[in-house]
Every structure is written in structure tokens, then in C-alpha cells.
């Protein structure tokens, strides 16, 4: 069933969009990532103009993240206090990111820079997660129970403004989570994603949060940051397509529910390896596209 999108001004298959939303929602629920780094490139691929894909993707992330968050709220795996600190950083970062984005736009080459950001960050994050998880798995196999490395000693522990995060079982300074939220906000605005794929590992490896509360807490932060981004796009660029969003989110919220259930059954290490593989695949695809000779050297720019 073809449907004409009022803002994107293209006609696409409604079932394709439902399916796409479903797959991304499933992954989003399972890993606690918004799925923006998947949905945006997929929308480009089916012919939605990039500006509309980025803006509408943000709106879709709100929906699937909300659905997934509800499931986490029931299991009480959300650290609101930590989420609040991350969010404060995130909103500042996102405003900063939009400013950086517009600055890059005046220099031209914004597409290339966005792609480079994707490849670099997906590559680093995916690679680190993969190595760490594989190491943890092999340790678990050979040396019995896995002893958690003492994390977060050093700078993170010496900073002032300490606060107790009961749900995470942490007593740390608010500065590291604020900085994490801020940098994710900047990247999220530039790359047009929620930023979960950067925040989740940052929360585990930098803040030392237990994996159990990481996903729910990152979802909490992502919802507000992407909602803010959606509003910015809707009021400045008029690029949010509500029909496209509706179709994606119907698929997305249903997928997210299934994803959360599957995620709860898997072991943390398995989850990390699966997420790392996914991130590396997307990274590899983007890197490959930048390196191979394009089928047409010319392209029509959007004015």
C-alpha cells in the first residue's frame, strides 16, 4: 500500500515503513539504544530526503524509547537521579551541537563530516565493547566467576560535588555524568541520533554503573534530548513528517516491547557482544561507502 508523505513529498510503501520501525524498535528495546543510527541511514536508503529522515528519526526515537522505558520502569531499572544529571548535560550539549552543526554547514561538507563522525565513533565504541566483552566471556569460561575490575579509581573519584546515586549504588561526583551527558548531546545533535550507543558504554566504563540500570537510565535521558531535537527541527526547518513518524512508531513501539523481553532474557555479556557487532556492521558499511568509487560522481544538493 503506497502512501504519500506530506512533508517528505515522496510516496513510499506503508508496510515497508511499519517493518522498518518494527526492526529498529526491537533493537532499541533490546539494547536500550534509540536506534537513530540505524533508522536515519535506512530512511535515506528508501528515498526519504536526508533532512526529513534526521528530524523524523528523532521523533520516532521518542516513541520507541518511551515504550521501552515503560517496561524498564516496571522492573525498576531506572536511576532517575543519574538520568537527571545526564539530561541536564544533554540539553546543554544538544544546544551546543546544533550551533556546531550550523557552523559546519557554513563551511560546506557537512554530510562528509557527519559520516566521518559516524565511522569514527561507531568504530571506537563498537571495537572497545567487542574486545571487552569477548575478554570477559573468555575469562568467565576459563577462570570461574568473573571478578569485576575495580573501575573508576583515579580522576573520577577525586572530583568534588559528590552525590549518592542509590539506584546505581554509586557515590561519585556529578561532574563526570554531566560531562558524559553533554558530550553525548553534542554528538547526538551533529549526528541526528539519540546517542544511546555512545552513552551506554560511557555509563558502564566511565561512570561504572551496573549494566542493569544503564539501559533504563539512558532511555530516560534520550527521550528528553530527542524530544528537544524534534521540536527544534519542527520549528526551524519544518522537516518533521508526522505521517512518516506515525508509521515508523507504530512498528517501533511494538518492536520495542518484544525487544525488551528478549533483552531481559539475555546475559549482559551476550547483549554487549550483539550490540557491538551491530555497531561495527553499520560502521563498516558507512566506511565502505566513503571509500568505494560512487556509481555517480555527481549529486544534486538540496538548497
Amino acid at each position, binding site marked *: *500500500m*503506497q*502512501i*504519500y508523505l*506530506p*512533508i517528505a*513529498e*515522496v*510516496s513510499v510503501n506503508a508496510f515497508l515503513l511499519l517493518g522498518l520501525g518494527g526492526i529498529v524498535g526491537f533493537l532499541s528495546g533490546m539494547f536500550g539504544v534509540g536506534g537513530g543510527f540505524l533508522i536515519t541511514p535506512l530512511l535515506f536508503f528508501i*528515498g526519504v530526503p536526508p533532512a526529513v529522515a534526521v528530524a523524523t528519526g528523532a*521523533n*520516532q526515537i*521518542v*516513541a*520507541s*524509547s*518511551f*515504550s*521501552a*522505558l*515503560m*517496561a524498564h520502569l*516496571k522492573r525498576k531499572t531506572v536511576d532517575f537521579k543519574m538520568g537527571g544529571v545526564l539530561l541536564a548535560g544533554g540539553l546543554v550539549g544538544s544546544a551546543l551541537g546544533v550551533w556546531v552543526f550550523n557552523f559546519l554547514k557554513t563551511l*560546506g*561538507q557537512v*554530510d*562528509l563530516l557527519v559520516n566521518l563522525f559516524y565511522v569514527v565513533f561507531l568504530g571506537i565504541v563498537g571495537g572497545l565493547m567487542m574486545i571487552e566483552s569477548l575478554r570477559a566471556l573468555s575469562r568467565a569460561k576459563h577462570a570461574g566467576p568473573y571478578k569485576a575490575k575495580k573501575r573508576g579509581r583515579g580522576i573520577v573519584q577525586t572530583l568534588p560535588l559528590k552525590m549518592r546515586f542509590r539506584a546505581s549504588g554509586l557515590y561519585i561526583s556529578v561532574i563526570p555524568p554531566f560531562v558524559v551527558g553533554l558530550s553525548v548531546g553534542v554528538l547526538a545533535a551533529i549526528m541526528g541520533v539519540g546517542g544511546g550507543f555512545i552513552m551506554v558504554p560511557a555509563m558502564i566504563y566511565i561512570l561504572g554503573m551496573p549494566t542493569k540500570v544503564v539501559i533504563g537510565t539512558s532511555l530516560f535521558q534520550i527521550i528528553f534530548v530527542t*524530544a528537544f531535537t*524534534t*521540536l527544534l*527541527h*519542527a*520549528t526551524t526547518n*519544518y522537516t*518533521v513528517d*508526522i*505521517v512518516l*513518524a*506515525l508509521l515508523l*512508531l*507504530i512498528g*517501533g*513501539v*511494538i518492536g*520495542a*516491547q518484544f525487544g525488551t523481553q528478549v533483552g531481559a532474557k539475555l546475559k549482559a555479556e551476550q547483549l554487549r557482544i550483539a550490540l557491538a557487532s551491530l555497531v561495527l556492521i553499520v560502521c563498516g558499511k558507512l566506511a565502505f561507502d*566513503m*571509500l*568505494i*568509487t*560512487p556509481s*555517480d*560522481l*555527481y*549529486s*544534486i*544538493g538540496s*538548497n
Partner: protein
Amino acid sequence: MLRLIAILCLALLSPLPLRAEEVVLGLSHEEIRITTRFDGSDILIYGAVKRDETSAPDLPLQVIITVAGPSGPTTVWRKERVGGIWMNTDSVEIDRAPSFYAVATTAPLKEILSETEDLRHKISIPRAIRSVGAPQNIDDAEAFTDALIRIHERNHSYLTAEGAAQLHENTLFDTNITLPSNLTEGEYKIRIFLTRDAAVVANYETPISVRKVGLERWLYALSREHALLYGLLSLALAVAAGWGASTFFALIKR
């Protein structure tokens, strides 16, 4: 058939103008309406050649029909390999390029239209695009215009259909033009040219509007005129869907 008879009657009854040959036109649609289920559209363009009795056509008449979408400036980029990575390096701004352009003719365009007439009436695709000048550093500006045409042709938004128009009895003509699904809104322009011996002997121009209707129009207008409200509505929809799905699933599990 009835339609053709109607046109003939129209052609016979209306008062004769000064010109020897003139076009009387009919369209299958008065306007193209973009609804939610819009998936491209075919438009039938038909008409008749009205002529006063003194003109005796010795050479056969040819018909060229063009449909042009709204025009605007377009930037064409060219990629180059820089340090192993393909990136946009050169760009040329095309002053005016239509968003859609179709040419349907009764015979190969080159045989029925001279270069000078094409230049005057801007009929063929390369002529319908206006590119004034390229920046100093680009010496092959034509490659950019060619690329623009190539990309549009690949998307079916530029088409040349030589021989797709029919002319019967030197009087009645018709053609069918397929408008793609990624049509943009605006005033489209239909032009009919009658040529003889590669020269234009008569032409006719009429607009046809392509516009969004119903829900499409309402949402589009809302997004432009009440952007904040529209943004909040999108978010409300997102939250409601997310909340609805999780509540629904919780009920199922119970």
C-alpha cells in the same frame, strides 16, 4: 470517441481567429490532487488543430507537448577522491531547473524542431534548464548540467518520449504523460507546439495545478503555520503510541 467529437464540434463552432492554425486543448484532469494514497498519476492531454479554410497545409504537421514543474535554482556537486575518501569538491549552481519536465513528440525531436526554434521556445530538456555561468575554477560546466539531467532521468522526473504523441488526420492529437509519485506541489505548465518543416507554426500554453488536498494539505499547512503546535503534536503522538503499546502488552501478559 465522444470526447473527440466534442472537441471537433468545439473547433468548428468557435469563431475563427486571425491565425491560420491554432490549438484547442483538453486535459483529463483540471488539477492533480495529491491525496494520502497518491502514487503518481497519468495525465491525458488531447486536442485539435483549428485552421481557417484558406490555409492549405502541404507539409505534414508535427506536435510537441511539454509539461514542466516549478523551476528553481539547484546545486550540482561533484565528488573527488581526497586522501582515499570520496568527498564533494566542486559545485555548480544551475540557475533554473524544473522539478519535473516531460517532452512528448510525434517524431524524433531533432527532425521536427530546428536548433534555433528550440533555443527560442526552450523545448528540449537541455534548453529548459538555464545555466548562466559556472565558477572560474570549473572548466567543464556542461558536465554538471548533463549530470543534473541524467539524475533526473533516472528518477523519472525528466522524460523525453519521442513518438509518444499521436496526430490523426493532421487535426487531432493526444498523448499520455506519467507523473511520478515523488511529485512536488506547484503550478505546472503544459505547452503544445505545432511544427512544420522544423519551425514552430503555432503554440499554446496552459497551467495545471498540482496540489495536496485533504489530510495532506491540512498537515502541510499546520507544519508551516503552527510549527510549534505541529512539533508538540508529533511528540504527543510518539508518547501516546509508546505508552499505548506498553500498556497493551502489559494487559496481554496478565
